[in-house]
């Protein structure tokens, strides 16, 4: 049709021919493209084809899984009685609850007071610690009758257990336990300090550390510098309040016969103050680190 149009007009015959040639050219390039297209189209087609295969495979796999799961669910619901399914979930629930309670009971160990039920009542375990060091623990086995009584215990004999139980056991068991806790922790703390002094700072002691079983009366002779020429001081620490780990009475005396120089007197007074305010082993740590220059800033 195009051919006919261009050839019929004379004036435009050359333009027509050129136009015709152009058209032919575009046709050729189009044909060439079409020839190429199948190749890339083929490539695309094959790529798409593989993709389709993959997706089909995945779909079939998922379908199979769904079928399996459905079958399983059907099987479990048909094989088991309705009551039993309820029981199982209840069992699961109770198991989880019991584990939770167990975990909480374990956590109570970290509060210092924990306990477990016994046939008679409850066995309470009291833990002791000093400055982050977990020390001995003690137990009290209580019989929960009216009135509650102590069945047996591991409390050391020098702790006034009878006194404390007479005061609180019948009226307020919680208060009884917490008070006992106070006494035991304080004793443990004092014992720890005395033990540390004996083991870590033996070089500073000029004689053995004298202590009672309650560790509330300590007496020792010491030097602030182990190698130094200074004469030893005599220290006596009394812890009148059995619920404390710091002494209530401190006396530091000088052993020698001649009078003390002013510096020595200052030192003596400073030491007395230190023993009042810091745990025993910490006082000696400060002696060890400061050498013979007593840092007055510690005395505050």
């Amino acid at each position, binding site marked *: 049709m195009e051919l006919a149009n261009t050839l019929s007009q004379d004036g435009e015959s050359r333009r027509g021919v050129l136009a015709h040639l152009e058209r032919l050219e575009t046709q050729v390039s189009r044909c060439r493209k079409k020839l190429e297209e199948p190749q890339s189209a083929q490539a695309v087609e094959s790529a798409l084809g593989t993709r389709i295969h993959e997706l089909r495979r995945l779909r079939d796999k998922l379908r199979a899984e769904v079928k399996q799961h459905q079958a399983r669910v059907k099987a479990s619901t048909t094989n088991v009685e309705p009551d039993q399914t309820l029981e199982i979930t209840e069992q699961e629930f109770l198991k989880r609850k019991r584990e939770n309670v167990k975990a909480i009971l374990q*956590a109570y160990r*970290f*509060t*210092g*007071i924990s306990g477990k039920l016994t046939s008679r009542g409850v066995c309470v375990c009291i*833990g*002791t*610690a*000093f*400055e*982050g*060091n*977990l020390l001995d623990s003690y137990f009290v086995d209580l019989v929960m009758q009216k009135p509650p009584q102590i069945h047996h215990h591991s409390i050391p004999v020098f702790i006034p257990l009878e006194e404390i139980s007479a005061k609180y056991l019948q009226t307020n068991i*919680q*208060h009884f336990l*917490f008070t006992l*806790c*106070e006494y035991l*922790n304080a004793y443990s703390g004092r014992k720890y300090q005395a033990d540390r002094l004996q083991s870590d700072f033996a070089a500073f002691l000029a004689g053995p550390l004298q202590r009672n079983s309650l560790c509330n009366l300590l007496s020792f002779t010491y030097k602030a510098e182990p190698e130094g020429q200074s004469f030893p001081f005599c220290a006596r620490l009394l812890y009148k309040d059995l*619920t*404390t*780990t*710091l002494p209530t009475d401190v006396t530091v005396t000088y052993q020698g016969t001649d009078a003390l120089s002013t510096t020595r007197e200052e030192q003596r007074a400073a030491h007395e103050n230190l023993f009042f305010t810091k745990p025993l082993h910490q006082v000696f740590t400060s002696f060890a680190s400061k050498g013979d220059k007593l840092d007055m800033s510690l005395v505050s």
Partner: protein
Amino acid sequence: MTEKSIKKVLQRHRLSGDCHMITFQLEFQLLEIQNEESLSSVITDLSIIMEPTEYSELSEFVSRAEERRDLFMFFRSLHFFVEWCEYRKRTFKRFKEKYPEAVHLSEGASSSCMGIRSPSRPGFELVIVWRIQIDEEGKVLPKLDLLTKVPLQALELDKNGVIETAPLSFRTLLGVLGIEATLESLIKSLHTEASN
């Protein structure tokens, strides 16, 4: 030659809970060192978060407990502190209910102050400040003080210096009668005067 084997285990724990009106959350690390002779357990790190934070006495106590890594002391002292707070609250509430016009609690039952006024004697006021302190060692102690508010005229008439020595006398009375009886006697003294 024997080989010394030392086993170290570091545990991390988080505890959260509440004690009456206070909730706490603790995180701490526990280092267990097992050598041939013994097993030692040390708390190596302790951090404590407490709500509510309006008990100012508690913040100092908490930082001290953290510093000393004294987990047990924290719980022990917290228990006693809360017990004392509850006791103070109950006592103040009881007096407020018994003597509604005379007793004045500025912040309700949880306040730390109780004011005693006499409706017929305005200008006079006895204020009892009841603080609950936790000392360096974690011991919880109540600390009560008496403040007096008296008109100038009355002061001039006070030849025996009763007002001046009131805070000291209050302390002595506490030792003799105990907290509740002392507070009640103070309320009654101002209250009965009013009815005369």
